[in-house]
């Protein structure tokens, strides 16, 4: 028997994000699968009332909250204090949370503080014979392990996009407030805001249906013996505007900037996918001018449907990894794709 705490922070508008609802779905399923294991909801943020109402019908035995202005911003010391108080008050043995940047930062520390353990980037969660088994990836998504552990509390932090989201009607929530007294040392850091590209220049869209992966081939000499980086930039930017796709990039393309070569101006290390980048989850992925063997292809490990454009029919990035490989000049194809998308948008 376990006591399962679903732990989440509110978003700036007071709601719960999709990753949180996915974690709630997993926590609820675990509670149902482990006989006699109650589900407790623990929320923290500036104001948790609307978030509590949104999950009021999830079957939790109680809803605990740490709320106040000090808990509005994402800050290790205050987030950890809130999570610690909620886990202690709930008497949690299992804590299920979403792998948001905020929780990934604080929960491993909280687990250590409580004498427990944390496992992050969990992609699968199952209960059988009274045991909880989690799945996660190792060596940058190159091998998958499944394991159990005996330490409690066990903080299980789920990768966003790996679980179905909990769905249920909102209801009336009775929230038990948990008081947290913060020492001055918890406020040595202040959050000054966020820095991001202008809205029309933002190319990372985690919720996009399509991931477009640009490879270093875009900056190489083309059939006429010349590079065409400005043309590549125009084509890609136009495609992203027309499809609202998210942009991923190979490391080699991003690194070219640091080596003084002409690169796509809107790319940064944040776009990088693969061994030393992200492994985003999107329903579809289209790559163009990407090359490389197995280690580099982990960047689209979690993309369901994959298509690639490459001049090399034996390209290790695509062959055996993509569903369709178009052996063609990406410049010519993407120009036509954009034409069709524009005419469809105008129709």
């Amino acid at each position: 028997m376990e006591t399962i705490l679903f732990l989440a922070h509110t978003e700036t508008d007071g709601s719960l994000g999709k990753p949180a609802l996915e974690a709630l779905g997993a926590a609820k399923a675990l509670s149902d699968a482990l006989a006699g294991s109650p589900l407790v909801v623990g929320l923290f943020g500036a104001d948790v009332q609307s978030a509590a109402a949104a999950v009021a019908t999830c079957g939790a035995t109680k809803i605990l909250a740490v709320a106040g202005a000090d808990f509005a911003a994402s800050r290790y010391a205050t987030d950890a204090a809130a999570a610690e108080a909620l886990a202690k008050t709930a008497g949690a043995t299992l804590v299920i949370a979403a792998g948001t940047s905020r929780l990934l930062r604080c929960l491993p520390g909280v687990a250590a503080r409580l004498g427990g353990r944390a496992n992050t980037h969990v992609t699968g969660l199952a209960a059988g014979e009274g045991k909880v088994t989690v799945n996660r990836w190792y060596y940058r998504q190159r091998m998958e392990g499944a394991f159990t552990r005996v330490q409690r509390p066990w903080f299980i932090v789920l990768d966003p996009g790996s679980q179905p989201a909990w769905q249920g009607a909102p209801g009336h929530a009775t929230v038990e407030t948990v008081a947290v007294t913060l020492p001055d040392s918890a406020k040595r850091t202040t959050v000054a805001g966020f820095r991001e590209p202008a809205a029309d220049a933002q190319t990372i869209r985690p919720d996009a249906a399509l991931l477009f992966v640009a490879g270093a081939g875009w900056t190489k000499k083309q059939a006429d013996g010349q590079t065409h980086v400005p043309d590549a930039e125009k084509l890609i930017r136009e495609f992203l505007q027309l499809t609202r796709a998210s942009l991923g990039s190979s490391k080699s393309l991003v690194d070219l900037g640091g080596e003084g070569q002409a690169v796509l101006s809107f790319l940064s290390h944040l776009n990088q996918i693969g061994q030393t980048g992200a492994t985003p989850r999107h329903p579809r992925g289209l790559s163009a001018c990407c090359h490389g063997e197995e280690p580099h292809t982990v960047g689209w490990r979690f993309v369901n449907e994959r298509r690639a454009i490459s001049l090399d029919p034996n390209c290790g990035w695509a062959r055996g990894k993509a569903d369709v490989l178009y052996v063609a000049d990406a410049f010519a194809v993407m120009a036509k794709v954009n034409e069709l998308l524009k005419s469809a948008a105008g129709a």
Partner: protein
Amino acid sequence: MSLAYQIVVCGSIVPDPLQTLEPVTGPAGPALKNEMMLPAWLDPWAAHALFEGAHLAKAHPGSKLTLVSLSPKAKLQQVMMTVAQKVPFELVALDGPANGFTDSAETAAALADAIQSLAGRDPARLLVFGGWESASRGAGTTLQVIAERLGIADVFLGVDSLKVAGDGSLEILERVEGGKHQVSRCAGPPAVLGWATGSLPEPKNNPQVGMLNMRGVMPALQKAKPVKIAAEGMAFASVNVPKQLRETRIVKDASPEQIAAEIVQWIKS
């Protein structure tokens, strides 16, 4: 206000990512096949942390950069042949396993103990750096546990920039969702920073730096303290390399118009 920092970078080694990795089950649980034979690198994000640490130390005279590494010392010695040529640092070596299946809590405990044992440790000047995730375990959990064990209340993860303001406070940019950076201001050390890519290119090899470093590296390796790291309390049911070979349909000899039409139809379906 210029402060001389004590910058401690925690970083281990990982197999060259171009190598074929195959899991095997050993007496202590999962491991990599021929692990000791695989060429190794300093963990990529830890390497960024080391370069950022060196940059900060150079900008603040009197600062000291220490690399604390928990790795099999024979492999660490090989890796140091290259890394030691990059930037000046002092090495504290711990001899133990570095594979991804070990438990980060145990690794963190050993690293925290090593940091606590550093001569002249001064929390008012201490900045603990590391990669925000390793390329082996890929968990991003070690640094927070170190922070808890050292009593450090300010932790940052996915750091791409650190600037020291005139009053000694730290402006830190951390990666958050949606391609944004959160901007935080921390009063100053002590703090723990898990670096993402940062903004510095990899320094070129400098044999003079290498020679200076190796004077300390070899003795550090010789007196590397053995550390028992396992995965106490964890029981692996399986570790597998996924079979994800897809039946790729290869479209040759189609015109750009035909391919474009198919792609657009697929995107819109």
